């Protein structure tokens, strides 16, 4: 067992955690990032980012590598492959972050634990996912296995459209199934998709107002059952694989019984200073209530938590005070 003390322990090495670490480490706070895998989070799987202000276009790994170097250059330590399993408020006001047999003691903690893909929740999904025989949640990972095959992708957000465009580079035919008429994705992406679909000889089929109700096949995916939301008619639609992009759920399972969570598992914060129900513990990025789940907002949250943390260090009683304009961040 190891007990090591830090000013700030940041749980999660995605954009929110790294941005927070850049600020705390620059402020000469002894900073540790605990990352269960490799630094990066969800954005690591994105090969095309074009909505991060100041950077016209970049891929996730390159951006993350820069953020990580930046945090480390100011003295932040990053421990990868460290899965945090619990959180404990100590009698002296410090917080213990539990990592299996190790404990890290912190004056303050930022939970920047991110989110994971949501499942569709239809028959067949889990069975084919487990077997690795035709259900995937990562187009950039698995598209090359579907050269000259037919796939269905599901969803209507940015990820669904980006990944569908990626799948078109490999598959013989891609059918995008979306439950609504309009896409939730940025208009630029939706227009690009529509333009792709209306090309002559397009390999893309777009089915709006349609849901997948089952994934079927003998030993591997061979078809999906589709239902029209408007008419209720059902059809069996042949395909070799299904790619699911229907949003994200927060990675907060291990926090039950520690900080307060919403019914859907997001961490409750005051949304101004990002304070959770446990004094000294902040939450930033995709895992907190009201998260926009964007790269730029995750970064903003990390910075915000790193700055408000200083007020907590000055005055622990501040934790329970309401959000007010008496103390402006610039005055901190």
């Amino acid at each position, binding site marked *: 067992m190891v007990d090591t003390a830090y000013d700030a322990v940041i749980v999660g090495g995605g954009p929110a955690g790294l941005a927070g670490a850049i600020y705390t480490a620059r402020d000469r706070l002894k900073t540790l990032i605990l990352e*269960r*895998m*490799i630094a*990066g989070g969800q954005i*690591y*799987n*994105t090969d095309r980012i074009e909505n991060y202000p100041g950077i016209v276009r970049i891929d*996730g*790994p390159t951006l993350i590598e820069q953020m990580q170097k930046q945090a480390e250059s100011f003295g932040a330590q990053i421990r*990868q*492959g460290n*899965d945090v399993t619990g959180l404990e408020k100590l009698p002296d006001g410090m917080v213990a972050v539990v990592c299996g047999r190790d404990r890290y003691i912190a004056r303050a903690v930022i939970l920047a634990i991110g989110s*994971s893909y949501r499942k569709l929740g239809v028959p067949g999904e889990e069975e084919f*996912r*487990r*077997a*690795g*025989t*035709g*259900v*995937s*949640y*990562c187009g*950039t*990972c*698995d598209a*090359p*296995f*579907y050269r000259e095959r037919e796939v269905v992708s599901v969803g209507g957000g940015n990820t669904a459209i980006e990944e569908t465009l990626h799948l078109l580079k490999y598959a013989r035919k891609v059918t995008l199934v979306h439950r609504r008429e309009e896409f939730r994705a940025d208009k630029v992406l939706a227009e690009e998709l529509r333009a792709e679909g209306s090309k002559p000889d397009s390999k893309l089929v777009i089915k709006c107002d349609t849901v997948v109700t089952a994934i079927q096949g003998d030993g*591997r995916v061979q078809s999906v059952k589709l239902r029209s939301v408007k008419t209720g008619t059902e059809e069996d639609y042949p395909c070799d*694989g299904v790619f699911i992009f229907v949003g994200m759920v927060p*990675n907060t*399972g*291990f926090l039950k019984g520690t900080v307060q969570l919403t019914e859907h598992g997001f961490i409750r914060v005051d949304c101004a200073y990002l304070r959770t129900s446990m004094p000294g513990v902040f939450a930033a990025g995709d895992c907190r209530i009201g998260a926009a789940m964007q790269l730029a907002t995750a970064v903003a949250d990390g910075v915000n938590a790193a700055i408000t943390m200083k007020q907590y260090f000055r005055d622990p009683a501040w934790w329970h005070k309401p959000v007010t304009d008496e103390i402006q961040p610039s005055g901190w």
Partner: protein
Amino acid sequence: MAEEKLVNVTDDSFESEVLQSDVPVLVDYWAPWCGPCRMAAPVLEKIAGEYEGRLKVCKVNVDEERQVASKHRIMSIPTMFLFKDGQVVEQIVGVTPNFENDLKRRIDPYVE
């Protein structure tokens, strides 16, 4: 990163490294374009260290070693197969939220 503990396996060395191994072998099918594969790598390194002598951890680049990948019908990466005495005894697909513990739970019944 610390010393690399994963054994790189090719189409040619699969038989000797994996199928004829005296200890169980965890084989990670990965590719350079796959983000989650890179994210899983430090966990696999850690497991290779913790189980040293009781478990061999190998990796197969599916982009280069196509025979092995196609023989095992890899359609999704990362996929990990656990081999014992030349037979597949466990298959783990994707990076789960509690990846390290999930892997250990699947491995533990097969190692000494």
